[in-house]
């Protein structure tokens, strides 16, 4: 008995020493990890002239938010952020709505096509996106011309939103349906016996139960859609309609000579997802792990 306790103690002491050593190592690694971000923040707080005349590592003579003020003014950041919101918010809501509909039907009703549908959606989410660029681009232009308005989908927020929804709904349907499988079937049965029709069964019974999964997914989807920028480059010909993530690419070329200003622009562009992450970290992680570790 006492020898066992001694081994236990020796083990714990050894672990403690190891933990201390590993903490230092991890701490160092974490510093290296965050350094580029800190450097960008640092750069964004200093005027460009100072770096030109005194060098990269010069002692700061003035630290302020001038670059941020100028970025908002010169780069028209507010407009781009608004574009991002116009695209991201409806895309996320529609993706979750459609995803939950599919999940609801395939897990609560026994149709023959259930598995096919779910496979179709999940596989669709994994296709290389470039496989669809050319046809979607021409389809949007043609459909627009058919209705006499070339910009109905092409160069229009609506087109971008539809594309985002079509691509993300597969992930949402998959995650929500694996979540739904954990909700007991009896709840649905009693709802049906009580005479609830399909819509009320979905809206009043299932949707409230899905809330935690929807919260997790919405954080993840917002991050993904906000950060996506290729579709906006392909489908938006007016730069003024592009979301901020896509606009950054052009700004990078334009402000290459004043990179302190660009640093401020990049930080502003990153802020929405970073804030979202810090406020709803749990949901973000839950969203990612819900989708990938259901084995």
């Amino acid at each position, binding site marked *: 008995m006492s020898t066992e306790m001694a081994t*236990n103690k020796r*083990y714990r002491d050894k672990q403690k020493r190891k*933990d201390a050593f*590993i*903490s230092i*190592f991890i*701490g160092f690694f974490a510093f290296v*990890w965050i350094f*580029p*971000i800190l*450097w*960008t923040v640092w750069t964004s707080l200093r005027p460009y002239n100072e770096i*030109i005349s005194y060098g990269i590592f010069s002692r700061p003579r003035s630290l302020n938010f001038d670059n941020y003020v100028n970025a908002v003014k010169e780069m028209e950041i507010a407009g781009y952020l608004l574009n991002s919101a116009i695209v991201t918010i409806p895309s996320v809501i529609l993706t979750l709505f459609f995803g939950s*509909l*599919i999940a609801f*039907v395939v897990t609560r009703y026994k149709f023959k096509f259930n*598995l096919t*549908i*779910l496979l*179709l959606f*999940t*596989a*669709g989410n*994994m*296709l*290389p996106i*470039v*496989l*669809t*660029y050319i*046809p*979607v681009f*021409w389809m949007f232009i043609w459909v627009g011309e058919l209705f006499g308005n070339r910009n109905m989908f092409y160069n229009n927020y609506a087109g971008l939103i539809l594309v985002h929804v*079509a*691509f993300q*709904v597969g992930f949402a*349907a998959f995650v929500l349906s694996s979540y739904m499988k954990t909700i007991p079937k009896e709840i649905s049965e009693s709802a049906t016996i009580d005479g609830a*029709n*399909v819509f009320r069964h*979905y809206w009043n019974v299932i949707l409230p139960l899905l809330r935690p999964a929807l919260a997790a997914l919405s954080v993840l989807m917002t*991050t993904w859609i906000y*950060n996506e*920028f290729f579709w906006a480059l*392909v489908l938006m010909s007016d730069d003024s309609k592009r979301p901020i993530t896509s606009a*950054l690419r052009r700004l*990078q070329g334009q402000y290459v000579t004043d*990179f302190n200003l*660009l640093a401020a622009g*990049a930080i502003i*562009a*990153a802020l929405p997802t*970073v804030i979202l992450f*810090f406020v709803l*970290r749990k949901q973000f992680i839950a969203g*990612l*792990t819900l989708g*990938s*570790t*259901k*084995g």
Partner: protein
Amino acid sequence: MKTATTSKKTRSRRSLSKTDRFTLSAFVGIPTLLQILLLWVPAVVTIFLSFTYWNGIRLSDIRWAGIQNYKTIFLNEPLFYEALKNNGVWLAFFVLVATPLGILLAYQVDRGIKGHAFYESIFYLPVVLSLAVIGIIWNFMLQPGGFVQGLMGLDIGNAISIWGNPDINTWVILGVASWRHIGYIMLLYLSGLKSVDPALKEAAAIDGATEWQIFRKIILPTMKPVNIIIVVITLIESLRAFDLVYIIYGSPTIFPLLNLLVFQNFAGQGLSMKGAAYAVILLVLCIVPIITYLRIVFKEDLK
């Protein structure tokens, strides 16, 4: 009793009223239609287009090309082989270095060291950043007048081009890509590790197992489903890679990747539909990991 349940079942099947049936068809139909129209139809059309010449303007201009586009790519396109090589190196680096590092970090952070939540946040931070922002951030580190060149004692006047140097740019790009990938893998792995019983580890350690033995004999087998998923994600991410390189270079000539070639041939030289052929080649490469993934996640349903 038995008849009661069967009658209840038939009733619930039959009890779907007309309205209910309509609602259900709309519930499934609308999302499926969107998915088919904007994803599956375009995918099939791209496969078809890869066998044609077309400038994309009028449908009547489409000319059958047979396998000519593929022939051009395979025989006359040095960039294609360079892209294959780069994607291969990318894949190898992610599988052999970045992913194991992410797992190692997850394993170490999982020991519950002091401030682990803080460290986790730092490692996850790059995962929430867009690649556009990541490109800009790393430019500040590496471009003339950036941090690294400053450290090397090179001011703007006699700076060197790190991105343009073919001897090192592969490793620099892979490093930046790993900066994001490692956090992602760590996040996925850590959530799996939390479900491993710590008593198991402790018991093994007291019996004299080394850390490496514990990891190989206890952690890896328990984490098998997560391991496979992570490998598949790594494969797909490596094949799909290009956003970062596009942000840095804007064209595929310096560091070609398959995806980048699709994009360039789509935007630049539509005539031959070579872009479509590149996309199909990419699809063929992705098919094995995709099917593997689907088979894992639908294991029970497919039975």
